[in-house]
C-alpha cells in the first residue's frame, strides 16, 4: 500500500511538472519580440605621426649661438579618424647674470626676454606657455593631414651673451595631443637637444 502511494506521488509529480512545462510553452506563445539588431558604439583613437629632427647634441657638442638646431622641419601628420586638438611647448635653458650666474628652464613665449629665436608654423597661436594649432579651442578635423610645427630654432647671438660660455644647455619641444572634448592632454612626442661643456 505504501509503495503504491509513493508511485502515485511520483506519477502526480511528473504530471504537475509536465503541466508547468506546457504552461510555460503556452505562455511563450502569447508573447512577441521585436528587436533591432547589430548595434554598436565606438570611440575613435588618435593617429599622429611626427617627423623632423633636431641636432643630435651630446656632452661633447660645442654649440655656438646662432647655429640652427633644426635639422629638418618638425611636423605632424594627423590621420586620426576623430576630431582632435594639438599644442606645443618649447622649453630651453636660459642663463642670466644678476650678480651671480644662474640658469633656469623657461618656456618660449616669443617675447623680447627670450634668448632663443623660433620659426613656428603659421597656424600656431600662443596661450600661456603653449602654442595651440589653430587656437586654444580649435578642433582639428579627422585626417587633417600634415601640420608644420617648427621650422627653425636657435639661440639668439645678440642676447645669448658671454654668460653662456662653457655652460650646458637643453632645448625641449613637447607636442601634446588629445581627443576633442573634455579630455586631458597627453604627450605625443618630445624633441630634445642638449650639450655639455666638453672636457
Amino acid at each position, binding site marked *: 500500500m505504501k509503495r503504491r502511494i509513493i*508511485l502515485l506521488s*511520483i*506519477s502526480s509529480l*511528473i*504530471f504537475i511538472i*509536465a*503541466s508547468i*512545462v*506546457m504552461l510555460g*510553452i*503556452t*505562455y511563450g*506563445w*502569447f*508573447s*512577441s*519580440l*521585436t*528587436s*533591432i*539588431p*547589430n*548595434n*554598436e*558604439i*565606438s*570611440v*575613435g*583613437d*588618435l*593617429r599622429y605621426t611626427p617627423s623632423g629632427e633636431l641636432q643630435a647634441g651630446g656632452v661633447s657638442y660645442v654649440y655656438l649661438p646662432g647655429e640652427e638646431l633644426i635639422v629638418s622641419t618638425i611636423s605632424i601628420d594627423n590621420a586620426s*579618424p*576623430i*576630431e*582632435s586638438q594639438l599644442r606645443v611647448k618649447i622649453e630651453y635653458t636660459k642663463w642670466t647674470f644678476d650678480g651671480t650666474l644662474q640658469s633656469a628652464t623657461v618656456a618660449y613665449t616669443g617675447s623680447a626676454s627670450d634668448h632663443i629665436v623660433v620659426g613656428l608654423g603659421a597656424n600656431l597661436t600662443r596661450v600661456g606657455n603653449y602654442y595651440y594649432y589653430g587656437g586654444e579651442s580649435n578642433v582639428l578635423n*579627422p585626417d587633417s593631414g600634415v601640420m608644420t610645427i617648427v621650422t627653425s630654432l636657435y639661440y639668439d647671438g645678440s642676447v645669448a651673451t658671454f654668460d653662456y660660455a662653457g655652460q650646458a644647455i637643453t632645448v625641449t619641444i613637447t607636442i601634446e595631443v*588629445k*581627443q*576633442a*572634448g*573634455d*579630455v*586631458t592632454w*597627453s604627450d605625443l612626442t618630445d624633441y630634445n637637444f642638449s650639450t655639455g661643456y666638453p672636457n
Partner: protein
Amino acid sequence: MSKKRMTLSLIVLISSVFLFVFTSFAWFAISDIISIGGQTIKLADIEATATLYVSTDDITYYEATEISITNSIPGTVMYYRLVIENTGDVDIRSKVNLYGFTNNVADPLASDDNFQSGKTLMDIIRVSESNDWNSEVLDNVLLSTLIPYVSSGDYSQSSATLVEVLSLDVGNIATVSFSLTIDGALAGNDYQNLMLEIANLAIQSIG
C-alpha cells in the same frame, strides 16, 4: 510486475503530455482561429511594431535601422526615439531593453592596449530615458549600473532595461526617448579605440 506496469504507465503519461503539447503548438502555430464543436475561438495576435529614429541635436530626427555611434569622442551625445505601436488585437505590456553586450576594439589595426587592460565603454556611457506613456525615467545613469554584474566578464547574455512596462491597448502608440552620451569627464585617452557591441534593442511584449 507491478513495477514494470507502473514504469510503462509513466512513460505513456509523459509521452501523452508531450504529444499534446507539440500537437497543440503545431495547431496554434499555423492557425488564426480554432474551431471546436462549432464554437470558433480566435487566437490572440500579440504584435508590436517598433521604429527607431536618431538625432544628433534632439531636434531633427531620421529613421534608423540600428544604434550606430562610430568614432565618437568624449562628449558625443546621440538621441534616439523608439516608436512602439500595438498592432495586434489584444492589449499588451511591453518592456524595452538593450540586450547582449560585447566589448571589442574599434579598429583592429590600431592599438588594442585599452581593450587589453580591461577598459569598457559601459563605464563611460551615460543613458537617459523618458517616454510619453508613463513616468519611468533614467536620468543620465551609467550604462554599467543598469547591467547586473557578471563575474566572468561575459555580458553577451546580459540586458539593461530602458523601460520596465509600457501598457498599450490595441492601436496605442508610445514613444520612448533615450540618449547615449560618451561622458567627457570619465572618458580620457585611456578609452580610445574601444567598441561596445549591443546585440539587440529588444521590445518584449506579452498579452
